[in-house]
């Protein structure tokens, strides 16, 4: 690229301006990366939702339980493959602000339905054998330094008392968005120890044979229990998760809109800077045209300059965001899936290039259209 020194000279022309332009792109795309991570976190449930998983909850309210006896009845429905259930435990470890979800699950079947969770086979067998055993996601285990064999006391806000568990297995995920914060233990242990609510579970999760069957199977389940004292409401896991997202949606909307406004403002600033910088140079551009530089070549050089700013500033911003999110959830539990996905990174790259072009396009067009005789008169 023999024109490189021209580009370099223009970039070095006003160091402070270059620095500020790069800084704006940096800030804009750092912000973009962090917003992307926040969005990931909010939509975690939706993104991980299995396409062929149904959640069966009490029709009246999610917090109302369903009878344990439904398991057999749901299993009989054709089109279903695996059925499992879970109940909210609602405790905490040492301090109420240390929160991670604890659930009493049907230990034999839970991991058949949540295939994305991987557990070592031996560890899993040890878990099945231990009445007080528990399985914890890798993130939570790492966060609190839990090791296999540890005895973990959980203070039970709902059921009262301190419940002790033995850590028998640690599960990992298959995708970055998988929730690795859960604390799972035997539903049978909960059933045995609790004083009330016996014979009930929180909700069922049904895996259908294929995603096409989710609609018919969900209708069939709800029909089967209609007119019983525990009517059900069955939804795909995705719809279920979206229900949650809607509840926190306003916060997300506020964060994202503020972010978007700042993002666009920063880019307007860079575009304007580019415009000013080209205007200042119109005499030089006229000289280059006089010498024989074509309109097209100068257009291309202007766009290249703009792309240089967006690429170097923007990429640095995105990488910094990525680096920041690699450390995981900065809030200590609120945003368990705080990460920049490869799709979001690709979108970021696209925006970097897009805005590089966009903020260069108008100045470059001005350069393209510049008439030598007009501009030379202005020197």
């Amino acid at each position, binding site marked *: 690229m023999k024109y490189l020194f021209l580009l370099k000279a223009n970039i070095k022309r006003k160091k402070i301006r270059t620095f500020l332009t790069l800084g704006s792109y940096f800030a804009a795309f750092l912000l973009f990366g962090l917003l992307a991570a926040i969005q990931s976190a909010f939509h975690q449930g939706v993104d991980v939702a299995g396409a062929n998983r149904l959640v069966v909850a009490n029709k009246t309210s999610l917090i109302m339980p369903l009878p344990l006896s439904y398991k057999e009845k749901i299993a009989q429905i054709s089109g279903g493959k695996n059925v499992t259930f879970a109940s909210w435990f609602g405790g905490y470890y040492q301090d109420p602000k240390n929160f991670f979800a604890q659930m009493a699950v049907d230990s034999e079947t839970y991991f058949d339905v949540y295939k994305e969770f991987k557990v070592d086979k031996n560890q899993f067998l040890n878990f099945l054998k231990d009445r007080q055993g528990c399985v914890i996601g890798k993130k939570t285990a790492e966060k609190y330094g839990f090791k296999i064999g540890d005895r973990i006391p959980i203070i039970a806000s709902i059921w009262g008392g301190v419940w002790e568990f033995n850590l028998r297995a640690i599960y990992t995920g298959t995708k970055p968005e998988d929730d690795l914060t859960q604390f799972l233990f035997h539903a049978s242990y909960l059933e045995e120890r609790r004083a009330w609510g016996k014979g009930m579970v929180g909700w069922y999760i049904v895996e259908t044979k294929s995603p096409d069957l989710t609609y018919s199977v969900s209708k069939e389940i709800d029909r089967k229990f209609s007119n019983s004292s525990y009517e059900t409401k069955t939804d795909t896991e995705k719809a279920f998760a979206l229900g949650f997202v809607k509840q926190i949606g306003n916060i997300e909307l506020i964060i994202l809109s503020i972010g978007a406004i700042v993002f666009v403002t920063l880019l307007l600033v860079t575009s304007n800077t580019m415009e000013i910088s080209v205007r200042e140079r119109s005499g030089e551009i006229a000289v*280059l045209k006089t010498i024989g530089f074509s309109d097209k070549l100068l257009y291309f050089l202007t766009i290249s300059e703009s792309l240089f700013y967006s690429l170097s500033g923007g990429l640095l911003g995105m990488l910094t965001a990525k680096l920041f999110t690699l450390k995981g959830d900065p809030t200590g539990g609120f945003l368990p899936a705080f990460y920049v996905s490869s799709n979001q990174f690709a979108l970021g790259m696209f925006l970097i290039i897009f805005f590089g072009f966009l903020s260069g396009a108008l100045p470059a067009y001005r350069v393209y259209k510049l008439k030598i005789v007009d501009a030379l008169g202005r020197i």
Partner: protein
Amino acid sequence: MVNVNGKNGARSLIQARNLDKIYTRGEEEIHCLSGLNLDVEKGEFIAFMGPSGSGKTTLLNLLGGLDKPTRGSIVANDIEITSLSENMLAQWRAENVGFVFQMYNLLPVLTAYQNVEIPLLLTSLSKKEREEHIMAALELTNIVDRKDHYPSQLSGGQQQRVSIARAIVSNPLFLLCDEPTGDLDRKSGDEVMTLLKNLSEQLNITVLMVTHDPKAAEAADTILHLEKGVLIEGKTVK
């Protein structure tokens, strides 16, 4: 021979015929050039003189393919440049014309060397070949020792010599100089004129120069006066 009567010219390097240039400013029409003729042979050194606003810069702009005449034709080295597209004109300028301006018009962010390199970027020369051409041009204009200096670090005369190096580096058909000494003191101006004269005499470079300064004009072979839109012959030195 230089000719301004529209005859002769079969052998001319540049041949301008019946040039009209009318500027319109709102309702008003300014007849800047009207029926101007000019024939220039290779190696000539011509000075154009005339009062301010007589159209000297306009004429150079037309001859250099920076602007188009309202009517008339310009043939340079057998190419009718008035009918070239903007794009082809740019290429034609790159290959055929060297420009020297009153205010030097060097790019302030580039060194002398880099400024001289600019026209060569439009050629297919390799880096090594470009370097040879640049050094040769800087030697001819006697400014090699300042090649790594930026324009702001050079005097006006030095800057003008760099700009002349830039104008000749790609071996153009002719040089167009618009008041090359207009912004210089007597001494630097004389040096620049001596340089242009040497280039014309020793390398047989064709030079068309606009000047207000009668002393500068003396360096030329021919002085032409621009009056009422046409050229009138003045004294001929040769």
